[in-house]
């Protein structure tokens, strides 16, 4: 399945894009997505285990992704 991953702030700058598409097997976990991300060009500028949000909520690494999920990787937040 193809997962679209949204990028923000410093991560969007690091990878030079606001979103990227990642090809994953069915039932892949958040952790598998992170492994796939780490192999992309520019990924060395991301931390080894970035926070991931799935459907607008922070997601644990063992969460299973489904086609159509809204996925984003979340840089360290700095609101306020």
């Amino acid at each position: 399945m193809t997962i679209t991953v949204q990028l923000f702030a410093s991560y969007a700058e690091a990878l030079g894009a606001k979103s990227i598409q990642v090809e994953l097997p069915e039932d892949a976990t958040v952790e598998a997505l992170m492994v796939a991300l780490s192999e992309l060009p520019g990924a060395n500028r991301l931390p080894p285990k970035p926070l991931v949000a799935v459907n607008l909520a922070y997601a644990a690494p063992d969460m299973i992704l489904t086609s159509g999920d809204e996925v984003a990787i979340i840089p360290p937040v700095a609101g306020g």
Partner: protein
Amino acid sequence: MRTAIVEKTIDLAALIAEVASGAHGAVATFVGVVRSVNDGKPVLGIDYSAYDAMAEKEMNAIAAEAASMFATSAIVVEHRKGFLGVGEASVAIVVSHERRAPAMDAVRYIIEELKVRVPIWKCEHYSDGSRDWVHAGTGAARPR
């Protein structure tokens, strides 16, 4: 109870009017403001960006938690995004309550949670022309 990401100047007086009530004896507020200096570097302003949909969902969850914990729904939170100059308000939290202690506790709960959970980022612009992403939060927001 209302929370929002906004793009215009935050009007604190309007937010207070929104939650004030004759039944309440206390109004507590917190306003975050862009500082002129950070870590010794002169600041021109801060460009705030957000993952809007998630930020609004998370802000709303935090306000709902506070409403439940402190027993008042007279809560309003606005966080601004876009480029803000020095002295401009980036966030405002207003809580009205029958009593003063829970009003102040609720404001504090909301700002502390907002700082670690809400996906908002700031890029500081300095007077020497450089800029930098500020990693103020821990980034250690817990998965839930």
